[in-house]
């Protein structure tokens, strides 16, 4: 009995800890700044006034930042998926150097890539993609390749049975035909899960976007968010509206794909 009460206490306390700051942000983002100052607890003044959102979209290049983030995350995801899919396919077979190459592709998961900020910066500058959305997308695809490969690879091993491959090869299909017509279609759900992760990772990343962009034309929404403390010294509620706009897309994605994310995670790290 005491244990049950304690369990509910913990669950509800955590619910409060997670939801309270987010709800405070949401509710405050609808308040005019002056009203917000007179009631910092905000919950006493719930209303749905879109004024802050309108002025953020009017006075800041917010739509451009959102579009930039979309381009970067989608481009890096497409690149990542197209690289990870054939790599995962190769590991459905035995071949020489297999045991050496698999760890090579996944060890990056635990490398603190922050140590490479200068090499990344120099590489991207060298190929002329500094201050360019494609440069940022390229870095994202490269850095998160181990994640993408691991997700696609684990799902592929579950979905594509050895018998399918054997049958296809016995029927006279080449390895390439087997990849295109047997393995790739079967691996599609796994690839989609990887894509969801990659899009969210790309949308949320800050450090490399900060280092590799200079102008509005290549500024992602996270970089814009990180500058808010300096730019909105007084108009807090407009800052809140910008923050809501910056997180809204991933919230929508996750609402639709919540179950896929939850089930994809455990499988990915090989726990199921």
């Amino acid at each position, binding site marked *: 009995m005491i244990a049950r009460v304690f369990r509910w206490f913990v669950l509800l306390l955590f619910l409060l800890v997670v939801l309270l700051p987010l709800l405070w942000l949401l509710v405050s983002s609808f308040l005019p700044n002056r009203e917000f100052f007179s009631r910092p607890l905000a919950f006493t003044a719930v209303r749905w006034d879109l004024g802050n959102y309108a002025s953020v979209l009017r006075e800041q290049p917010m739509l451009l930042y959102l579009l930039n983030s979309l381009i970067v995350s989608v481009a890096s995801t497409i690149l990542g998926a197209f690289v990870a899919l054939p790599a995962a396919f*190769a590991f459905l077979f035995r071949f020489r150097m297999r045991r050496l190459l698999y760890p090579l592709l996944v060890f990056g998961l635990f490398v603190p890539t922050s140590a490479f900020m200068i090499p990344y910066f120099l590489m991207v500058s060298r190929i002329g993609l500094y201050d360019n959305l494609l440069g940022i997308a390229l870095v994202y695809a490269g850095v998160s390749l181990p994640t993408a490969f691991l997700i696609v690879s684990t799902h592929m091993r579950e979905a594509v049975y050895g018998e399918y491959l054997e049958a296809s090869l016995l029927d006279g299909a080449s390895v390439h035909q087997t990849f295109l017509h047997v393995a790739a279609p079967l691996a599609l759900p796994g690839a989609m899960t990887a894509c969801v992760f990659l899009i969210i990772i790309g949308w949320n990343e800050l450090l490399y976007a900060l280092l590799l962009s200079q102008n509005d034309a290549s500024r992602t929404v996270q970089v814009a968010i990180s500058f808010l403390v300096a730019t909105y010294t007084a108009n807090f509620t407009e800052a809140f509206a910008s923050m809501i706009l910056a997180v809204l897309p991933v919230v929508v994605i996750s609402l639709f794909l919540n179950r896929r994310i939850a089930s994809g995670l455990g499988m990915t790290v090989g726990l199921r």
Partner: protein
Amino acid sequence: MNRIRASTALLYLAPALLLVGAFYLYPMAYTIPASLFRWDRITAMRWTGLHNFTTLFGRADFRAALANSAIWIGVGTLVHTPLGLAIALVLQRKPPGWSFFRTVYFLPNILSVASLALLWYFFLNPTIGPVDGVLRAIGLSSIALAWLSRTGSALVATLLPFALYIGFTMLIFLSQLTAIPREYYEAAQIDGASNARQDISITLPLVRRAVVVNVLFNASFCLKMIEYPLIMTSGGPANATTILPLFMYYQMTRAREYGLTMAAGLVTIVFGSAFMAIVFLLQKTANRRWG
């Protein structure tokens, strides 16, 4: 398993190997020699041997960053991970509404760390933040003091959101918990073991793989992340909240000390590898004990 020629396999692996080479192997190979030079990208590189490393360890701000990163990893291992496990254990018994709780707990983990950091910056703000507002309202104004600008509390304040947002860790635990056969618990129940007893004797040994995965993921997050200290405190006051990635970021962008930044990068990698080695050793010991 079917066999293919290595040349065919390499054809399929080439793009992936290219990316890993460009974004992991090459930067590593570049960083080691480059950390032995003094370089600002404007004047010529100058060979200085190990001078960058002696400079680093002689500097109070770097030592603070190293110590704080160790604290971050410590909190990730000893607070964040156990909290995630505790919540997963509660949700695993599927209390009413468990899937709602799971969704809500995971929600912050899909939001950008930048926006969460900014949210907590405002939430803990002394003039507009509700935390200090409530504390003052209930007469505790003595502790309602600018959490982020005092050396005593700033580090805890930047760590707080990370320690509390356990959604990712919880999901990884949940996925291994659901793989434990029900019969284990039924047998224990017949023997009269309490829930707590079952968690300690059955569940804990069986989820140790997930413990290792989570500890390593969290440590690597701590060594990559710059957002919380960058946005909440800029590493201040007086280096109280600085961590290794933030130190490198400022050395690169503000001080333009490229060689020094890469030396700090190497220290970060060695530090992370040492931690991983310890975790693997502990795992080996545990495996010997529980088979």
